[in-house]
């Protein structure tokens, strides 16, 4: 696996090479695709290694790559953006998630910011997070059917209003 000149990717590959499925550093964004099963272990390494020091999980989101020519590729990717305040560097970690088992391990134990962002990904994409303490919808309401950021959710679809007067 190549490090594309990024010292962050080099350190990650040296310590957890087998867990990394792919890397790139296009447009200056160092990126690693990590095996779903070893996500927590890799993330703990990135947070706790002194030269890496990723104190902050700045962003967590998912992407739906549904398309007819996707073939056997997993449909979803969960994308994590890490930032180190003390060292001022960034790293993007991605996890491939198949449609048949939309589950990833939760990172709430490592970074509290994952709590709301994982709830949002569950809300919008229906990807569950194992070990999340409180996996409720966050932007939409209980009783909303489906997960609207999935590509197969039609934009025009209406849902009944909920509440005491409806």
């Amino acid at each position, binding site marked *: 696996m190549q490090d594309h000149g990024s010292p962050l990717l080099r350190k990650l590959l040296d310590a957890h090479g087998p867990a990394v499925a792919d890397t790139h550093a296009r447009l200056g964004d160092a990126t690693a695709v990590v095996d779903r099963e070893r996500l927590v272990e890799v993330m703990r390494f990135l947070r706790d290694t002194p030269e890496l020091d990723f104190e902050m999980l700045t962003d967590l989101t998912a*992407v739906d790559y549904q398309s007819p020519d996707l073939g056997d590729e997993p449909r979803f990717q969960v994308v994590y953006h890490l930032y180190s305040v003390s060292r001022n560097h960034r790293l993007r970690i991605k996890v491939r998630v198949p449609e048949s088992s939309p589950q990833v391990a939760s990172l709430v134990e490592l970074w509290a910011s994952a709590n709301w962002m994982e709830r949002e990904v569950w809300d919008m994409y229906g990807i569950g997070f194992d070990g999340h303490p409180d996996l409720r919808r966050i932007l939409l309401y209980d009783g909303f059917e489906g997960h609207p950021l999935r590509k197969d959710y039609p934009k025009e679809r209406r849902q009944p209003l909920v509440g005491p007067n409806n």
Partner: protein
Amino acid sequence: MASESHGWTERTPDSPEDDLERDLHTEHQILNMGPSHPATHGTVKFLIELDGETIIDLDVQVGYLHRGFEKECESGSWYQAIPYTDRLNYNSAILCNVGYCMAVEKLLELETPERCQWLRVLASELSRLGDHLTRCGAACLELQAMTPFLYGIEARELCWDLQEALCGARVTSNYVRIGGVRHDMQPSFPALFRANVEKMRALLEDFEKVVTQNRIFVDRLKGTGIISKEDCLRYAVTGPILRSVGVPLDMRKDEPYLVYDQVDFDVPIGEVGDNYDRYLVCVEEMHQSLRISEQCVAKLERLGSGPVDVDDPRVRWPAKGRVFNRMEELIQQFKSVTEGPLVPEGEAYTAIESANGELGFYVVSDGGAVPVKVRCRPPSFLNIAPLPLLVRGSMLPDLIPTFDFLNMIGGECDR
């Protein structure tokens, strides 16, 4: 910010007067506050568990302003997302424009002209100023002080007049374009700018005279809503809140974008991380924004006329004269209008310093004219998440200034 002594006793939870009340416990009650409450300038609901007037726990319920921003972006062209970004943080719309356009430009690998970059910095700082004025003014209003609110809003009017002179609109300005900005500044702009900046400085001075050393205001803000540095990092809290605990993180300095490395400004930090520190940080940032925008206007005058758009047929329309007289440009114009730009396959993340903290955009393209994904990393959403930590154990009225200085903007938080 050094906490000066004001000559009166500080309020601490352990002062002997509180001993009598310490063991008075009532039955816990649940209070619903919001989603549309007169003392919160944001559409959000709090489910508060109270013991008397003491907050035991709190559940923040967001989402009342969810409008499907990302879904809408994924169903239009790359250009059509720009007006939606205006409506994320409606207090500082231009900053959202800038963040989104920079992310798309990163995918296109475009370098914008120098004049465009200075105009973007100028517009960003005016936007940030308007945002901070709203935050500080509204916080005073919600603490029952009408006068400073009016000073703040008058200054914001002057700021919005400048934005109108620059962009043609006051609030949702739709100013920035992929690879450029909508207009260059008018020749009359620098004169108006100088006149308004002078008035804004005077208003800010009045505002600070009324508020900064005001006993009631200081008592309500000092020692309330304290957050620690560790919690800020764990919760990915950024912006003035993180700076108020003493971490000088500012994307304009740490990852300089546009021409921020060529302007001279300071990043104010606090010490304690309470509401008062956040107030002081915001006030100082307003002065710094004025300082940056003055440098921008001076630089733009020195630069003289020049292009404000990148010269790249992928994102800019050809000149009208050529469209009417030449076949290639006619085709190109037709494609640009009906289809919009084709953005190369890939993914990009850009972060800018918005008024609330790190505003990130993560965009994914499959090489087509429609985005696969436009993710906005909203600072408000992450800044409001640790609110229960900040108010647990404090009095119910302390929730108001704490919420005000976290400055949750519903449009950005809920998207």
